[in-house]
């Protein structure tokens, strides 16, 4: 009876994308990563990007760069620079999904985004496991979807979870909040994981163990 308090746990929100989202998440999580979303059609201006990330680190501590692109080569370019930020790639395009995993970025977010399938299979799951690339399960696409789209997203996420589980792929659950209205508490994000098929310890690990292991790369 009674649920244990989670205060002794250490929960990490891996992806919020605005100051107001960061502030609210910071009340509910032990650590929050601020994500700079970067839509790339060609190489960015490296100097100004580096400068922007430096400033964000000053404001928010831990910072991730989310690359949204159609060009696999741009992922490799960003990967090669030492930007002192986690590198996430927005999933959805199968070539990008695969390339991000093969290039060993820190996380591939929502490989099912905008697709009519999970965008993820056992071949990609094996690559992700080998390269140690985490799969990010985001709440926000669900929040912004119609009921029909919510059904499809939940199906694809549940399917991806079965592969992630079977091949022991690193993963995390995140709000991916653009605004504060998309932020949710750790325990509520866990309920998403549980309904995707995770056991309670697996859901917890998706907000605790796995994120912390990824964060430790930043501290090196």
């Amino acid at each position, binding site marked *: 009876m009674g649920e244990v308090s989670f205060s002794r746990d250490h929960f990490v929100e891996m992806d919020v994308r605005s100051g107001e989202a960061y502030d609210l998440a910071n009340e509910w999580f032990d650590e929050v990563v601020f994500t700079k979303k970067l839509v790339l059609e060609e190489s960015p201006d490296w100097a100004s990007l580096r400068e922007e990330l430096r400033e964000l680190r000053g404001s928010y501590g831990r910072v991730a760069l989310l690359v949204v692109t159609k060009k696999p080569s741009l992922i490799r370019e960003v990967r090669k620079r030492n930007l002192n930020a986690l590198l996430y790639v927005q999933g959805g395009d199968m070539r990008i999904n695969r390339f991000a995993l093969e290039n060993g970025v820190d996380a591939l977010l929502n490989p099912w985004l905008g697709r009519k399938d999970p965008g*993820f*299979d*056992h071949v990609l799951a094996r690559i992700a496991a080998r390269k140690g690339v985490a799969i990010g399960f985001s709440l926000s696409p669900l929040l912004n979807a119609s009921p*029909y789209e*919510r*059904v499809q997203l*939940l199906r694809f996420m549940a*399917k991806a979870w*079965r592969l992630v589980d079977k091949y022991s792929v690193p993963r995390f659950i995140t709000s991916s909040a653009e605004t504060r209205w998309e932020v949710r508490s750790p325990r509520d994000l866990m309920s998403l994981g549980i309904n995707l098929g995770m056991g309670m310890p697996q859901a917890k690990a998706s907000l605790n163990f796995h994120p912390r292991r990824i964060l430790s790369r930043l501290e090196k």
Partner: protein
Amino acid sequence: MREKPKYPPPTLRDKHRYIAFQVIGERPFRKDEVKRAIWEASLSTLGVLGSARAKPWFIKFDEKSGTGIVRVDRKHVEEFRLALTLVTDINGSRAIFRTLGVSGTMKRLKKKFLTEYGWR
């Protein structure tokens, strides 16, 4: 480079059942109306989460005989059948869904439950 995920290995494949159904209505219905009615029935009775689990998938509807096929997850056949049972209208016109039978393969489903409606 491939643009679609690979078909999953046997242990990760979804286990489906095919359901043959008949629509009795106060007028004939078009395929798209029936498809939408099935989705609405699922969302209303099973909700977003229950529908994500039941994975209803409209396959076919023969407008002439008023019969069709829908696919659902094996573990949620009865829940989905209730969803169809609770339908009272399609696109504003009175209608009944009657399930004719269930099978693990389309071929057997057609043979056992749909040949009398002219399916081959």
